[in-house]
C-alpha cells in the first residue's frame, strides 16, 4: 500500500485550473481506492492465517445487523404488498401480489436495502476504525513491522462482506416475502398458497443470481469506499467523523448509481 502523504499545491490561478485539479483529485482518489481493493483481493491466499479475524468480521456483518435487516425487510415486504395490493384489487388481480413482491425484492430491493444497511452500519464502522488507527499511528506501526495494513485490516473485512452481503440479501428476500405474505393474507385476502404459487411462477433463477451478483458488487463498493476513507483520514477526531460521514454518503451514492447500471445491463 502506498503512503498517503500530504500534498501541498499552490493556489489555483483560475477556474479552469481549479476544475482540473478537482477532476484530477477525484480520479486519483478512485484509482487509489480501487488499488487498495485490488491489493485486498490479492492477499486472499493469506486468509487461512486470518481465520479468527475473518470470523470476527463475519459475525459483525451478520449477527449485529440481523435485527435491523429483518425489521427493514419485513416492513419493505409489507409495504410493497399493501401498495401493490390496493392497485391490483382495482383490476381483481390481487392474487398476483406474491409475484410482484418477490420479484421486486429479489431483483432490486433486497440487494439494495441490505447494502444500504451494511454501508451505514458496517462500512461506517470500518472507516471509523481504520481512520482512528491511522490517526493514532497504529497503521504506521503495522507498516514498520513489515505488516501490510491492507492485508491485515482490509482483506478479512472484504471477504467477510463478500460472504455475508449475499447471505444477508437472501435472508432479507425471505423475510420481505414473509412480510408480503402476511399482508396479502390479512389485508388482501390472498391465501399463502396462492401467494407462494404466484411468486414461484414469476421468479426465475436468473433473478436470484443477478440479485446476488448485485450484492457482491455492493459489498466491493462498501469496502472500497470505507478502506480509502479510513486510510486517508487526517485531522484527528474531526477527520474520523468526516471519513465516517463520507464513507456512508459515497457508498449510498455508488450503490444507487451502479445498481442502476447493473440492472440496465441485465434487464
Amino acid at each position, binding site marked *: 500500500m502506498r503512503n498517503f502523504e500530504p500534498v501541498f499545491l499552490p493556489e489555483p490561478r483560475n477556474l479552469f485550473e481549479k476544475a482540473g485539479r478537482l477532476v484530477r483529485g477525484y480520479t486519483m482518489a478512485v484509482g487509489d481506492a480501487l488499488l487498495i481493493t485490488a491489493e485486498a483481493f490479492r492477499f486472499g491466499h493469506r486468509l487461512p492465517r486470518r481465520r479468527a479475524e475473518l470470523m470476527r468480521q463475519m459475525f459483525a456483518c451478520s449477527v449485529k445487523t440481523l435485527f435491523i435487516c429483518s425489521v427493514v425487510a419485513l416492513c419493505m415486504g409489507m409495504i410493497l404488498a399493501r401498495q401493490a395490493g390496493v392497485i391490483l384489487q382495482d383490476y381483481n388481480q390481487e392474487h398476483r401480489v406474491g409475484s410482484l413482491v418477490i420479484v421486486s425484492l429479489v431483483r432490486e430491493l433486497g440487494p439494495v436495502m441490505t447494502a444500504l444497511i451494511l454501508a451505514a452500519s458496517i462500512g461506517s464502522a470500518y472507516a471509523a476504525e481504520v481512520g482512528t488507527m491511522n490517526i493514532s*499511528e497504529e497503521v504506521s506501526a503495522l507498516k*514498520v*513491522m*513489515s505488516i501490510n495494513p491492507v492485508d491485515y485490516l482490509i482483506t478479512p473485512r472484504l471477504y467477510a462482506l463478500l460472504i455475508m452481503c449475499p447471505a444477508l440479501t437472501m435472508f432479507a428476500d425471505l423475510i420481505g416475502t414473509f412480510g408480503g405474505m402476511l399482508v396479502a393474507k390479512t389485508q388482501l385476502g390472498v391465501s399463502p398458497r396462492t401467494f407462494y404459487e404466484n411468486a414461484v411462477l414469476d421468479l426465475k433463477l436468473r433473478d436470484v443470481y443477478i440479485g446476488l451478483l448485485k450484492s457482491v458488487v455492493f459489498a466491493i463498493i462498501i469496502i472500497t469506499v470505507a478502506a480509502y476513507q479510513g486510510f486517508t483520514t487526517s485531522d484527528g477526531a474531526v477527520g474520523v467523523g468526516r471519513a465516517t460521514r463520507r464513507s456512508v454518503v459515497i457508498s449510498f451514492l455508488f450503490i444507487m448509481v451502479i445498481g442502476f447500471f447493473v440492472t440496465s445491463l441485465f434487464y
Partner: protein
Amino acid sequence: MLEFRNLTRSFGDRVVLDRVSFTVNQGETFVIVGPSGTGKSVSLRSMVGLLTPDSGQILLKGQDLTAMDPQQRSIMNAHFGVLFQSGALLAWLTIAQNVALPLLERGVDEDEAEERTMEALRMVKLDHAFDRKPSEISGGMQKRAGLARAIVTRPEVILYDEPTSGLDPVMSRHIDALIKELQQRLGVTSVVVTHDLHSAFSIGDRIAMLSDGHIIALGTPEEFCASDSDIVQGFIKAQFSAGYIRGIKV
C-alpha cells in the same frame, strides 16, 4: 550504521529538513532534540519509509533506503524497531498479542513467539500485565508495551519517537532508565527523538539539535552544552536552571 546525506523534505513552502546530514554509529544512542515542529519526527519517519524525502539519501549499513521500492523497503524495516509516541498498540489485542504480532506475522512458530514475547515483556517489567488490553493500562505501561513490541524482533536499530512525552517526571525517568538498560543489554543502535533535555542528557551518547531544518549542534552531551549557539543555549536554559547535568555545568 545509519547515515543521512543531504536529506531534504518540505511540506508546501515550508522546508522542514534542509539538506540534513549526520551519521549514527553502531551501538550508540543518538538523540535528536529541538522544539516542536522542527522536523525531528519527520527525520524518524523518513528512516522507516513512512515519509518520502524530496531529495537526499538515508543509508543503512551502506544501502540506500530511499532508492528502494516499497517491497524492499518493507524487508529492510525488519532491521528497525520503533516506539511510537502514542505506543500505537492495537486496541483489540492484549498486550501479549500486540507484542507477539510482528513475530507471528514473520512466521515464527507460536511456542517460540510466546517465549520471546514473555522475555520482552519481562525486560520492560510488564510480564504481569500480559493479558490486559491497552485501554486497561496506564500511558507509561503502554509505552513500555510499545517498547517490548519494538525489541521483540531483535532489531539492529531502535527508533524512539518522543518516548517521554505525556508522562509524569517519575515515569519519564523510569522510561529513560529502561532505554539505557535495554541499550546495555541488547547492544543495539538507538535513535531517540525528543524535546526533553533531561532525557537526552541521561540516555544520549551524542546529541544533535534541529532548528529551522538544519542541524545546528551535534556532539557528546558535554560538547552540546558547550555549544556557542544562542538557540542551543536558549533551549538548554529553558529546561534547566543553572546547575549540573551528568556533571556538566549549564
